[in-house]
């Protein structure tokens, strides 16, 4: 491709009519949905994780554990694009706030995965730790709060970050329900300039940079938390 042609395409994709503003707005929608979903997902996921590991005195699963299992099964067993569309076109058909619907839908989706992450994190803490806590005279609840959870937190942080990264990228499907997120904006500009390459690469670079920054920040946090580890 000639250089002038490339410049023309870049100009059309980003500069004409201040189109770069559209990408920023799209990124705003993407971030709103992702952050809302992440917060909701962690809340739902934590609750579901504790529901799932709850046992009765005779060692069998509680009703709550069964409910959590069904929730996780259904969410993991259906495509998220379908979940968003069901939420938008069927369940919450009367709501006008698309961002809220998408955030809610992705939050419920993410909650199932977060639940499994947290459950795995808790189970990874050695049983001896619980036993030691109980021997020292702490109650079950106290052992959980002051011995198991602080250790589990370090276990779950990396997979949680990973889940957020997946979530951020997965929001690219909200264009299906009329939201103008980053991916959709790139598509809109492509359909106007008839050049798909430049806007799509542009959007890809923006996603990449955002996620790179996130990873760096969370790397630092993780290292900070490991400072007390003697290894």
């Amino acid at each position, binding site marked *: *491709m000639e250089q002038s042609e*490339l410049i023309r395409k870049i100009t059309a994709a980003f500069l004409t009519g201040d189109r770069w503003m559209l990408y920023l707005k799209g990124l705003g929608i993407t971030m709103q949905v992702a952050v809302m979903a992440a917060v909701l997902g962690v809340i739902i996921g934590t609750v579901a994780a504790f529901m799932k590991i709850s046992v009765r005195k005779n060692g069998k699963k509680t009703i709550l554990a069964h409910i959590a299992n069904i929730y996780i099964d259904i969410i993991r067993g259906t495509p998220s694009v379908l979940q968003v569309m069901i939420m938008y076109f069927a369940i919450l058909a*009367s709501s006008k706030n698309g961002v809220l619907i998408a955030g809610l839908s992705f939050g419920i989706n993410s909650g199932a995965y977060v639940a499994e992450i947290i459950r795995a994190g808790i189970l990874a803490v050695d049983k001896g730790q619980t036993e030691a806590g109980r021997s020292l005279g702490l109650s079950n609840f106290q052992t959980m709060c002051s011995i198991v959870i602080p250790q589990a937190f370090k276990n779950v942080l990396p997979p949680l970050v990973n889940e957020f990264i997946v979530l951020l990228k997965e929001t690219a499907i909200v264009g299906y329900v*009329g939201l103008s997120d980053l991916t959709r904006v790139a598509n*809109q500009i492509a*359909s*106007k300039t008839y050049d*798909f390459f430049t806007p799509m690469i542009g959007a890809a670079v923006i996603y990449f940079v955002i996620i790179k920054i996130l990873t760096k920040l969370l790397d630092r946090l993780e290292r900070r938390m490991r400072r007390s580890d003697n290894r």
Partner: protein
Amino acid sequence: MKKLVALLTAAVLCVAGLTACGSGDTPANADSQAAGGRPVLVVGTNAEFPPFEYVGDNGEPDGFDVALIKAVADKMGMDVQMENMEFGSLVSAIGTKIDAAIAGMSITEERLLEVDFSDEYYEAVQFVVVPAGSEIAAAADLENKTIGVQLGTTGHTIADESITGADVKTYNKALDAVNDLINGRVDLVIIDKNPAEVFEEQFSGQVEIIDGAQFGFEPEFYAIALPKGSEMVEKVNAALAELKADGTFDALVAEYIQ
């Protein structure tokens, strides 16, 4: 810092390299041979636009445009293979993935920069779909409203460029936009006359349609999009003229549109 510069340079080179491949001359599909020996014309459409194109009961695109392009290709001694794709990506796929596009596509200046068009075969105007009992009636009523459109259509262009203060929501399908109109998420939908009429019938009592002429929308002309500088334009035009002369065209209009 040096690393960053090196990384950026690498990225730019990669992009440039990819671009070079992307713009290379991909052979057109026009000369590929069908099993029967007749060359195959690969035609793109977006089968979400009744009565011009829709997915028929057999899962293949059907409708006026599909029947028309088959008749045109027959006159040219070719078979047709339909490709159903997003409307917004049709124009950029012409010349690479498809040989032509017929999709109720209006001739516009922007599209003419990228493709050539055959002679027009249908005159259309954009219609405005509003909820039943809406007070929208004149051009000024359209300002500062939330407008639903199908991505990349002329309705999209009108909403984006000719209406002040419009909050434009883009959908993959016109039906999704009308669905959101009924759910109260958009105030109006701008779409071509014929599909608007189909929606009015389907959602009677829930939506009303208004002729775009009332809002000063210009009439548009549908045509078949072909690669820029293609010699097919003349052949297609000749076939179209023949079909109009021998009554086939009117028969198709009667069958699909009226």
